[in-house]
């Protein structure tokens, strides 16, 4: 009898362990499928919002102005010509905004590459933008990416979102800060994952810092909103002529891929 027990008991325990593991993996799979569907919906909503905010509104505004031109013709030629000049400028501005929104979509995430490497490319990406109309033209700042700690694998969705937020921050520094140096610092720590983007530029306008944002950009409130959406926290420090620093902080549980060790531990506990 005792010998039977000696055989049956371990086999039984193993069988139960196996069943629990299968159930657990199934549940994980289901969760990840659901998550992917939800991410897709969210992404579609965001694209719709961006197109609506930039391209669509700009073009519709221009159509009203063109209609004004139509009503001025043929009697008030000089006024009509003035309106046409403005319409052309506005059209170009709308194209510029739309182009940026579309560019934003194309860089949905640094798929396949690691975050520090993807961020390191931003310098060469934004350098030409400094000369675009509407930006504070000047010499391109130096750009560097610092990594602290040994890299820990980030969840893909987190990596993409962090990339987008950091990218917007770097772009703002390039375009508006008139900085000599723009720096990204990535800190892989046990309990938290942190990314800081800082520049030594002119600093933010206090009004912008508080609530304002430029049209067609998601700016600070947008960044903060996005950070909050996936469980992060965004802090901004800025002082006139002393530069700006933006810090994005994430709890390790949100940021990092859960390690297989945790899975084994959990099954061991469940038995």
């Amino acid at each position, binding site marked *: 009898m005792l010998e039977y027990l000696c055989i049956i008991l371990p086999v039984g325990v193993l069988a139960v362990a196996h069943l629990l593991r299968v159930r657990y993996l199934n549940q994980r799979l289901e969760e990840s499928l*659901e*998550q992917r*569907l*939800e*991410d*897709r*919906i*969210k*992404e*579609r*909503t965001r694209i*719709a*919002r961006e197109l*609506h*905010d930039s391209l*669509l*509104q*700009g073009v*519709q*505004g*221009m*159509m*009203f*102005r063109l*209609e*004004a031109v139509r*009503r*001025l013709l043929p009697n008030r030629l000089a*006024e009509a010509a003035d*309106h046409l000049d*403005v319409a052309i400028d*506005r059209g170009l*501005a*709308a194209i510029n905004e739309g182009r940026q929104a579309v560019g934003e979509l194309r860089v949905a995430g640094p798929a396949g590459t690691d975050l520090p490497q993807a961020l390191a490319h931003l310098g060469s990406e934004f350098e030409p933008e400094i000369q675009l109309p509407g930006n504070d033209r000047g010499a391109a700042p130096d750009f560097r990416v610092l990594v602290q700690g040994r890299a820990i694998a980030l969840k893909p969705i987190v990596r993409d979102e962090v990339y987008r937020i950091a990218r917007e921050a770097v772009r703002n520094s390039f375009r508006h800060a008139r900085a000599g140096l723009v720096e990204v610092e990535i800190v892989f720590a046990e309990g938290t994952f942190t990314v800081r983007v800082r520049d030594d530029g002119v600093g933010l306008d206090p009004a912008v810092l508080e609530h304002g944002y430029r*049209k067609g950009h998601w700016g600070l409130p947008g960044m903060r909103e996005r950070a909050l*959406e996936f469980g992060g926290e965004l802090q901004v420090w800025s002082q006139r002529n002393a530069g700006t620093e933006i810090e994005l902080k994430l709890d390790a549980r949100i940021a990092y891929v859960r390690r297989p060790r945790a899975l084994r531990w959990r099954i061991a506990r469940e038995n």
Partner: protein
Amino acid sequence: MSDKSLIRILCVDDHPLLLDGVAALIGTEPDMKLVAEATSGMEAVRQFRATLPDITLMDLQMREMNGIDAIGAIRTEWPRARIIVLSTFGGDAMAQRALKAGAQAYLLKGHVRGELLDTIRVVHGGARWVQAEVASSIATHVSETALTDREVEVLGLIANGKSNKLIAYNLSINEETAKTHVKNILAKLHANDRTHAVTLALRRGIILI
């Protein structure tokens, strides 16, 4: 023409290029004058109070108080205010909500060739006006069961990528209840799945992006 006979207009839209275009168009008309602009619902109420315009042109989707709420706020304080909605959204649900909130007219930004100025004069004369396209979309859906406020809320959360679990958490209900809401929403909208439901809801203006 004396200042008294001018139609005084407040234009509310959160996009500067749109405001700019409307201002240019109104500027061509000798019987109209743009007296103020606002870029949010809050500012619209403030500007209305400051200028008491004859006609308000109102966008719907804005930060800091959307257009529907702004129409409600203005009409509560000034029941005789005359408001024309100028929207990107042609959906029946949004148009109905705007009209119910007290707007006299509903125009689509994309289909206003020649119509905006006429509508301003017509509404100033005391009439109501709904674009044919919007009217037919209202008529199409008039016999269907409308979504409840709670269901609209749930749809908004789905559009923001929330799972049933998160929807339940956000609304402080249990997950089963959230699932039931989702099921009812899909049935009422004749949608195949969540993505489809969001697409339909955006098209009909049941939710704003």
